[in-house]
């Protein structure tokens, strides 16, 4: 997976595989190390799926508890974080599905992107980036989930088309079609902003 937490060196991967093996065997301290390693990127992803802060924390907790339960069956055919991310994504979808239809995403989108640290550029750039982040968050919040989720998975989370399509249980052509429609819808909502920032 190319999601933010997916970038590791071969040495780190070997270390992770050992931690996962120990955790699968019941070693809680190994599992706690995995929690400390992956809770923050998982939380960030959950926020971007549209959960508010409290929901994202609850879902992160639930995700790790489910992972602890299922780890003995995890065969390490994929990276641990890829497996964990899938559990988290499914939990987030369940949580979002329980919300009333109206307002499912708007508030969540509002600060899901705004509530992040950046690399601290100059004041003018910072203000511009902040404006963009807020505009993006608002626009994402206005998209229906079937268009928003493909954009979040592919463009924000950085999953490959294959990974994102698989997560949504869609064929790649159907996924690409939704992704394009989502991007075009976002573009429509952000035209004034995009027009002023075109190179």
């Amino acid at each position: 997976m190319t999601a933010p937490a997916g970038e590791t060196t071969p040495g780190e991967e070997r270390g992770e595989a050992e931690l996962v093996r120990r955790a699968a065997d019941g070693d809680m301290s190994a599992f706690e190390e995995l929690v400390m390693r992956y809770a923050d990127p998982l939380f960030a992803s959950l926020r971007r799926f549209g959960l508010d802060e409290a929901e994202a924390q609850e879902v992160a907790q639930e995700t790790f508890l489910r992972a602890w339960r299922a780890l003995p069956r995890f065969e390490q055919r994929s990276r641990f974080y890829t497996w964990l991310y899938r559990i988290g994504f499914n939990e987030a979808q369940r949580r979002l599905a329980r919300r009333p239809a109206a307002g499912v995403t708007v508030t969540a989108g509002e600060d899901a992107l705004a509530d992040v640290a950046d690399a601290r550029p100059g004041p003018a750039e910072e203000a511009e980036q902040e404006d963009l982040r807020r505009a993006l968050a608002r626009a994402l919040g206005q998209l229906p989930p079937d268009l928003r989720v493909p954009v979040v998975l592919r463009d924000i989370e950085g999953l490959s088309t294959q990974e994102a399509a698989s997560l949504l249980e869609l064929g790649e052509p159907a996924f690409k079609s939704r992704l394009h429609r989502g991007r075009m819808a976002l573009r429509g909502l952000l035209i004034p902003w995009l027009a002023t920032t075109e190179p």
Partner: protein
Amino acid sequence: MSIPGRLHGLRFRRDHRWVPAHASAYLDGDLAEHDRRRVKRHSGECAECRALLSSLRVLIGALRGAGAQAPAQPVAGAVLASIRGRLDEVPRDRP
């Protein structure tokens, strides 16, 4: 209008419908070479499609930038504290 001029007009209108529908595939590198050339040729002579591609490129870049940012408030410690006492109670699946 000459025949080549009319053919060019037909091709332009056909590509003007085709390019927006394939803009994401173009930007994601998913098009075959002859289709890439088709997008390049048309956007070279169509300001509207050029603007569309440019704005989508900016949008995708902004979305990817948002994904690279770290959460402002780390929650790992809080998540760990909340589940630490509960791990013992979770029944574990069989291998």
